[in-house]
């Protein structure tokens, strides 16, 4: 059994009856290894479709949690259960509850730093005072507004006012939280969250491959949310200096927000400033200032120092990329997908109105980026299998388009592997309009292929 990763949260979905025998069969050694390698900042096991479990059944997953945490400092736990199941888990692991429990995935997402929705009004109650405080702190750190009920009566009374809260937290427990450098995307800026004492370990906790690919796909502003950093040592200083040098090659900017120099040597600040890193007191000072954002590169990715162009290696593999796209569309729509025209050029979108797009990067033996551009209604049609119902929710269509391009990426990876070319794929990115796509793609040369299914046209673009 494998976890499905969405918005940085990997979720296992076992179903039926979970005892010692069944759980061991559900999770092979390979499954556990694959989970450790996942690019997720939270791993959860959903109990929504589990009608019965016992301690032995949960133990297989708890062992996996331990293995995951041994290798990566991310949050792990169970989710999607009712009060009866919650009490049973608490009872099983009374003195040994070192994983988290979230009554729903919606609640879990509030504690994930990758979750894009911020400023949620959250009512919370836990009869353990230290849990109440821990939850409130985490929620606050993640940009939400926690409202803590001090007693069960107060909680029940507040809860009855349904419209007052976006999310109500009960029957939940915070185990050890993630310590990885979590990342989230805000507009065209990437925000990394760092905390406590920064030392040589930052090199392990920071996902450098993700960062490099973000540079490759056009991100130009990287903000380190450093409110919770207590101090840093020389190893961390060297790490950030190196990061700043590599960012300079792309004309990218690195900023620190909220870093206090009470316990960090003042001269470190000068060294980092010399390396090109900027310092701000408040996140709003950057994100709320459009002019500054533009200056720092977050509104446009056009100023790229070393523009990379599509090369022979990439063009030679173009058929694999097109085949992966065509077969994905055919799989999703049951229609024949046709290649209509192909050329090497800058991206050329004839009717940009109501178009949406998604992209996925790849890196390894070769690197680059696949972009798919659809009229919104055609995207809906292409994603019908995944959406399952008619929807006018653009956010949902974009989300599903990300899944579609993720499938294309998976197929590309497998087709290239057959040609003995090994690549990894990045997380997919979506663009709600053509302007946002052009910010990263307009000056890039690439291979453009016009494709269609059921006479509905869409565009494929492969670039570096």
């Amino acid at each position: 059994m494998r976890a499905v990763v969405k918005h940085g949260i990997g979720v296992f979905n076992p179903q039926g009856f979970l005892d010692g025998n069944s759980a061991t069969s559900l999770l092979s050694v390979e499954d556990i290894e694959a989970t450790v390698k996942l690019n997720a900042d939270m791993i959860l096991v959903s109990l929504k479709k589990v009608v019965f479990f016992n301690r032995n059944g949960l133990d297989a997953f708890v062992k996996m949690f331990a293995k995951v945490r041994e290798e990566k400092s991310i949050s792990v736990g169970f989710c999607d259960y009712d009060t009866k199941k919650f009490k049973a888990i608490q009872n099983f692991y009374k003195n040994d509850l070192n994983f988290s429990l979230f009554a729903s995935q919606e609640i879990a997402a509030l504690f994930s730093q990758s979750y894009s929705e911020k400023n949620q009004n959250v009512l919370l109650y836990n009869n353990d005072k230290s849990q109440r405080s821990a939850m409130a702190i985490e929620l606050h750190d993640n940009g939400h507004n926690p409202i803590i009920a001090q007693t069960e009566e107060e909680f029940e009374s507040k809860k009855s006012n349904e419209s007052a809260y976006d999310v109500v937290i009960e029957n939940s427990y915070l185990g050890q939280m993630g310590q990885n450098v979590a990342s989230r995307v805000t507009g065209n800026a990437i925000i990394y969250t760092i905390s406590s004492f920064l030392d040589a370990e930052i090199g392990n906790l920071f996902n450098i491959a993700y960062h490099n690919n973000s540079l490759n796909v056009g991100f130009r502003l990287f903000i380190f949310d450093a409110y919770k950093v207590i101090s840093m040592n020389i190893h961390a200083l060297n790490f950030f200096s190196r990061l700043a040098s590599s960012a300079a090659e792309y004309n990218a900017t690195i900023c620190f927000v909220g870093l206090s120099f009470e316990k960090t040597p003042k001269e470190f600040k000068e060294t980092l400033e010399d390396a090109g890193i900027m310092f701000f007191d408040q996140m709003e000072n950057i994100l709320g200032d459009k002019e500054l954002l533009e200056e720092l590169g977050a509104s446009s990715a056009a100023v790229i120092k070393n523009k990379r162009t599509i090369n022979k290696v990439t063009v030679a593999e173009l058929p694999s990329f097109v085949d992966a796209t065509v077969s994905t569309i055919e799989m999703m729509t049951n229609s024949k997908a046709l290649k209509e025209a192909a050329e090497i050029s800058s991206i050329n979108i004839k009717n940009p109105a109501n178009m949406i797009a998604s992209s996925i990067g790849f890196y390894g033996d070769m690197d680059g980026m696949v972009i798919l551009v659809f009229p919104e209604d055609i995207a809906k049609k292409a994603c019908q299998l995944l959406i399952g119902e008619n929807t006018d929710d653009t956010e949902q269509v974009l989300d599903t388009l990300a899944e579609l391009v993720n499938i294309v990426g998976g197929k590309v990876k497998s087709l290239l592997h057959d040609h003995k070319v090994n690549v990894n794929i990045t997380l997919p990115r979506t663009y709600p309009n053509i302007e946002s796509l052009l910010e990263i793609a307009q000056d890039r040369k690439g291979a453009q292929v016009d494709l269609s299914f059921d006479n509905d046209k869409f565009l494929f673009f492969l670039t570096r």
Partner: protein
Amino acid sequence: MITKEKINAFIEKIPPAPKALQATLMFLNSGELVKAAQIAETDLALKSYLKNIVNKPIYGFRNEVSEISQIFGILGVSSSQQTVYNYMLTLLSPKKWELFHLTELHFHDLQAELSLEWKKILNHLNIENDDIESAITLFPASIIVAEALFKEKKNDVDILRSVNNLDFNTILTRLCGVDLFDISEKIAQKWEMPDTIAQIVQAASGSKPSQNDQINTLGKWMHLLVFFVLSKPLFIEAELNDFIEFQVEYVQDIYDDFAKLMEIQ
């Protein structure tokens, strides 16, 4: 990936029930076990299947049972009928399973386990009805249909399921507007199985509750039973556990009763 044409071609290829089986069932229906056994003896494959299935440890007979008349006598009319239907279904099952990690023997184990537990449930519910007892035999048809339709698309399905937690039934419904159980119903119609069988199995899919209270209740029990059996290591390793979506809410009101009956602690 899967088209309506492919589904139609699959339905088209379902062979009619062999004459010997039709005759065996006819005699079983009228309670004439001896005549039914005489006909069944002429079909060597059926004879071999009946011997193998009845001598499985799960049936708990101390001595080997080898004569068909003896087998029918021990099983009684309704269980004999059920076993013949189970055999009919094996005529559709592949020699080599590709999508699911099953063998012919494991599939027989699944049939036997479902049949015995279903009988236990019907006894508990005080239901004595040959057609209802035989209903469980059609459920595994959905597994055979999934194998036949998806086996060449395993890689596609794996990639699809790596980004979205979809079961085979949902994929098929979204692509073609019919599900595994609609196709199973077509099999039942082609083999002239009583309508009740298909109705119960449709309800047991968990996604199409029946308007008929009795059929709906039986559908719930069957849905839960299927997941009880598919949660056993053998069938989890065969990747059968998530071939359809388990509808926990659908079975919630009978769960305690079920757990008591199956002695789940």
